[in-house]
């Protein structure tokens, strides 16, 4: 028969256990199912950015020319692009539901990593919390990159390197494989706020700072993505659709639809700041009728011709 320990010893044990586990309790647990909220930058995220819309991007001339000469046919014509996933940075724009879980070392009970799974391309990411350094420059790059996290109070700050080249905006504005992606995760009850910072020496003149929000959704079923490339139109091998510089006929559409001065759609650091609104105030002529994505709150109510 097992002896029962004295009550005082049990209490002491609980106290000791709680003291030992205090550091973990002081940190936030992001574990769970999260649904993206689209109240910020809605049309850009879903249904997707307009061609020629470079607003709010502190891009340089190289990125602008890349966007100007991008042909969206590339996504279907280049077989290797058909199943190309979002980068770890673009995934956090909330293009699909998110699952987060923790990896705990069972011996030490220390947090080793957060893992994330997203609907889009079944993308999975590991955020290492065990203090390991990032790999050297010549290690392979991946779509999700290599991520490490540190706590700043209740905020989790994640640094990601080793990303593969991908897009910064899905209309041809690129993000290079030299970019460093920083996230600040903060949980407010059932809401998760993620502030993201992209620093890209190749295509940005200053950091691109954005925020996205998620809502806890314990009943969600992320489902299976699945993708298999399949050439749809016979083309000569190696065809890479592109517009020659100065010959893209679609670049003015965005400015015309929204009554914006063309220059304001071209991006660049200056256009990010409130002072720029004053500069273009006399050139902004809102259209009499909204012709495009007027009342978008989700993918499903974004009628192109809604007025």
């Amino acid at each position, binding site marked *: 028969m097992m002896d029962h320990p004295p009550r005082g010893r049990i209490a002491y044990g609980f106290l000791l256990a709680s003291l030992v586990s205090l550091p973990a309790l002081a940190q936030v647990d992001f574990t769970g199912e999260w649904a993206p909220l689209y109240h910020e930058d809605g049309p850009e995220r879903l249904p997707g950015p307009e061609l020629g819309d470079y607003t709010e991007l502190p891009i340089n001339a190289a990125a602008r020319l890349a966007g100007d000469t991008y042909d969206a046919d590339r996504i279907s014509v280049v077989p290797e692009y058909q199943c190309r996933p979002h980068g770890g940075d673009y995934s956090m724009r909330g293009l699909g539901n998110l699952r987060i879980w923790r990896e705990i070392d069972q011996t030490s009970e220390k947090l080793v990593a957060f893992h994330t799974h997203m609907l889009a391309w079944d993308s999975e990411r590991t955020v290492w919390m065990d203090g390991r350094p990032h790999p050297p420059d010549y*290690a392979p790059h991946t779509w999700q990159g290599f991520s490490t996290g540190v706590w700043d109070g209740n905020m989790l700050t994640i640094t990601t390197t080793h990303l593969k080249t991908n897009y910064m905006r899905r209309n041809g504005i690129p993000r290079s494989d030299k970019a460093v992606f920083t996230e600040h995760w903060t949980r407010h009850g059932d809401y998760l706020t993620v502030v993201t910072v992209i620093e890209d020496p190749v295509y940005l003149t200053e950091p691109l700072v954005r925020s996205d929000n998620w809502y806890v959704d314990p009943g969600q079923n992320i489902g299976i993505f699945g993708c298999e490339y399949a050439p749809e139109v016979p083309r000569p091998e190696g065809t890479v659709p592109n517009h020659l510089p100065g010959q893209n006929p679609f670049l003015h559409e965005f400015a015309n639809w929204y009554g914006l001065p063309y220059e304001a759609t071209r991006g660049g650091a200056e256009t990010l700041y409130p002072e720029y609104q004053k500069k273009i105030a006399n050139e902004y002529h809102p259209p009499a009728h909204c012709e495009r994505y007027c009342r978008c709150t989700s993918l499903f109510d974004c009628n192109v011709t809604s007025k």
Partner: protein
Amino acid sequence: MWGSPPGCEAQRLPPTPSSAFRSRGLLDQGVQRGRWRPAHFEFFAAVFLIAGAGVSFAQPPQTNPDSVQLTMAPVQGNVYVLMGDGGNITVQVGKDGVMLVDTGFAPLAPKAMAEIRKLSGGPIRWIVNTHVHADHTGGNAEMAKLGMTSESIGPPRIVAQSNVLNRMTAPPTGNQPKIPEAEWPNDEYFLPTKDFFFNGEAVVVYHVPAAHTDGDSLVFFRRSDVLSTGDVFTPGSYPILDLARGGSVEGEIKALNQIIDITVPAKYQEGGTLVIPGHGRLCDEADVVEYRNMLTVIRDRFRDMIHKGMTLEQVKAAKPTLDYDTQYGSATGFWTTDMFVEAVYKSLSGKPVSESK
């Protein structure tokens, strides 16, 4: 018998989950055990000397070999890569001995061999040269000598496309020294492919004509699923088009497309066949696709401008590579953006650059 060096085993890739990039293990473990060291790309500056209108690829670095750091990194299967000054050296090891793809600079051979000996004490039986340049062939003689063991049945076979041998045996021009016979390939091929079986896997060598040079080879380790490309693929810079040695833009694009044909990603364009470039980091198909796209887009622009009758100066003024310059270009060094633009123009127009002025 052979084994992994201490610490290297820790970097070896974990069993492949169906959905994972096979090199994720390498990434996940990062530099936790302090095995990784900074890459050295300054080799380029020392390798390539401007000689008149062309580019000389024959000089070894003026670096003290003792100060050069070489890093052996596992790739997958039987294959490793030795990175440092000079071109990447692919190392395949197993029960039959050692095979190398390229041999780096001659002065670095003892140091490189010391790294290889941490993987295997077996004899070097095969060397494949991906092309003629000295940062890939300079160590042929020394590595062949150092790679001999009591198990050797003769010097290693040094495989290369026949144009490599032709260029190495040609009478030297200008101030270039004669290349010693011991550095020459002794097993040249002239058909589109050559294959053999070594260390339990098929090795297929593909000739890609008129790309970086006229004697480029890709080397595919079929079981390990690793492709070594030589300088046909250099992800850190614009492709080096050695027109004087038979390189061309169109051939380079075809070669990149052939790499994409050979490679198969594991899932969603990641992992699967791993690609060892001539210089720079480990890659996979998606990285080659970006590079191929870049050169194809640039080729299309140059074709259009040449068709319109634009001179080289007009083309340069139009900045047709602006969107890629911050990624691949350089204002200084052995292979500048200007030199790349001139080479593309010359290759596509068929005109010597001087005629366009």
